[in-house]
């Protein structure tokens, strides 16, 4: 039995990647996910730029996780320069971050993943066959985008976040209206859980090392220690002990591994490591979806995103209520305490652990930069998953086998534009 799958530029993912699988005489011969995105070189370009520009430059790494990159970038500069955020700034940072989690997860589960289960090539035919599903997805996505826009001006690329705080503040009337819209969206969120609970997720188990941030008192999205399901815990500054990057010729993205042959970041890793800190309603949703940690079916990464849609909706409502209770005051950004400095900023962006590491010189210009991107950390695990997955599907005709492989790739929600610019700090 010989099979060859060669998918040039996988569709419905962010960026350019190819699947290459060859089966010869019933044996898996080649199995690769080639990242063919053009190299981006952001770390090299950051050198010489003022730290105040860095979050606006690095948000341009990715249109989907622009807020996540800006957040990690700001945290790196803030740690480097000893900046302490006000309580109000923390609430606003967390709120707009939830907006991005919602926006990205809704886009992924509805527009990129769902068409595979409904037997169509994109969301467009669903407008006629499943109008209620498409309209719900559009409503939810618009709400998420409006939430980000209320805080930072727009989702792609956020304007009002700056080192030490914000340059614009939402009005109480806007917060009140947003709170009501989020409450009204609960029925859409519930319908989302019901829809995805019914999908026939492929059966596939492969345990791996799940890596995420962790905080003692909240489901971590910004800051925290780096932890793994194999018992590792390190502060962000020691990230290299976990990420261990290496390069391969078929990919412009760097690969990572830690204790095992590969590791995985993203919603499933967060779910597995931080389940106890999910909002109670998110735990209920997980039960409806049949999920309890540790979940080792990679395809359920999309289901973990649905659980996080519930969590982020509920936590956004909580944060807005807190802001409404305490009031929002325009305030100057918190001052920097020292220069030069070096800092590591970490955030759990929609696709997983993101690390920005900067050194800032005496003149306020960046002298060295390193960004570690979730998709980079996942591609090695994806290839190991493909090796385990192909033997289960290679009896099928090639078009079906191809779809099975594409679905596995899409489960990771890869963000390939992001993934191609990584390096060690050199000094």
């Amino acid at each position, binding site marked *: 039995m010989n099979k060859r799958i060669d998918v040039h530029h996988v569709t419905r993912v962010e960026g350019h990647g190819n699947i290459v699988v060859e089966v010869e005489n019933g044996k898996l011969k080649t199995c690769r996910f080639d990242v063919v995105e053009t190299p981006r070189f952001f770390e090299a*370009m950051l050198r010489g730029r003022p730290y105040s520009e860095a979050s*606006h*430059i690095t948000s341009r790494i990715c*249109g989907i996780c622009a807020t996540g990159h800006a957040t990690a970038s700001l945290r790196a500069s803030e740690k480097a320069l000893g900046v302490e955020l006000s309580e109000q700034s923390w609430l606003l940072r967390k709120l707009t971050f939830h907006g991005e989690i919602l926006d990205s997860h809704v886009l992924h589960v509805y527009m990129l993943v769902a068409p595979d289960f409904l037997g169509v090539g994109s969301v467009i035919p669903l*407008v006629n066959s499943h109008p209620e599903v498409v309209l719900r997805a559009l409503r939810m996505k618009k709400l998420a985008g409006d939430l980000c826009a209320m805080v930072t001006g727009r989702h792609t*690329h956020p304007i009002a976040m700056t080192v030490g705080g914000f340059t*614009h503040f939402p009005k109480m009337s806007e917060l009140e209206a947003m709170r009501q819209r989020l409450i009204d969206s609960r029925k859409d969120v519930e319908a989302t859980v019901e829809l995805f609970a019914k999908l026939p997720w492929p059966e596939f188990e492969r345990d791996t090392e799940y890596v995420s941030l962790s905080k003692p008192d909240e489901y971590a999205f910004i800051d925290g220690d780096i932890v793994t399901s194999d018992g590792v815990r390190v502060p962000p500054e020691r990230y290299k002990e976990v990420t261990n990057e290496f390069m391969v010729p078929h990919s412009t993205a760097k690969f990572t591994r830690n204790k095992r042959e590969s590791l995985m970041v993203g919603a499933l890793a967060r779910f597995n490591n931080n389940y106890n800190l999910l909002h109670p309603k998110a735990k209920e949703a997980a039960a409806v979806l049949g999920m309890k940690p540790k979940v080792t079916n990679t395809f359920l990464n999309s289901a973990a995103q649905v659980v996080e849609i519930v969590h982020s909706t509920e936590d956004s409502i909580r944060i807005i209520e807190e802001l409404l209770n305490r009031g929002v005051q325009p305030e100057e950004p918190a001052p920097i305490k020292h220069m030069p400095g070096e800092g590591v900023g970490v955030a759990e962006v929609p696709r997983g652990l993101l690390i920005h590491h900067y050194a800032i010189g005496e003149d306020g210009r960046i002298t060295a930069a390193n960004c570690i991107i979730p998709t980079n950390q996942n591609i090695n695990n994806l290839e190991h998953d493909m090796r385990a997955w192909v033997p289960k599907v290679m009896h099928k005709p090639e078009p079906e086998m191809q779809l099975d492989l594409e679905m596995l790739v899409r489960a990771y929600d890869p963000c390939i534009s992001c993934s191609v610019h990584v390096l060690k700090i050199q000094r």
Partner: protein
Amino acid sequence: MSANGKPKIAFFDFTSCEGCQLTVVDSLQDHPELLNAVEIVQFREAMSEKGEDYQIAFIEGSCTRQSDEARLKAIREQASIVIALGACAHLAGVNALKALHPLEDVRKYVYGDKWEWYETYDARPIEAVIPVDFAIPGCPIDRNEFIAVVKALLLGKKPPIPDYPVCVECRLKENICMYTKGKVCLGPVTRAGCGAICPTYGSSCEACRGFITNPNQDSMKDVLEEAGLSVEDITAIYTMFTTYQVREKLLQKG
């Protein structure tokens, strides 16, 4: 045209964050009627189908390697109208920051001793490789402007892109001038059309939409003069999106 008389549209991406295509998806949330007026035959980020028969091509991203030029030329050959979508395609945008360092240094900084594995050259706008009919400026594009451009194209009109500075829109918004706050802002020399969104949210204009045609004649020079700055001063220093244009100008001057 397709059999139903709708123009066929395709989206392509080169070196970029794909945020402009996402903005297109977001624009369609508020204008689903556009999906009835056109037929999208290729949009890799959103759909699996790939049609090669199209009249209008939207291109996002800069050209950053020689091997991408052939793909651009093939798009130009097929499409009757080619539109640069967003700052990377229009200006080379942030990708051009790479040119501020020697190319070999940039490649070694990111890929170390494997630097030769990955092809790259200085980032350039699409029109440096193929003729472009229109550009929709911005990083990202403005969703209302995108809709306005598509509607104009469908009516056979020239897309309505302003050629006056951002200050005009900023004053209409009654924002406090960034120079009054003691900050440098590129609004006086930058093409309007964004509704002055950055100053409105408390951040200086970074010129993501490129310069107006004659900044020395048409800019808000009074604003600059009060701050003791010239057009040359601010455009030479603040190059987040316009490195390619500033360097081209320097090369012309010799």
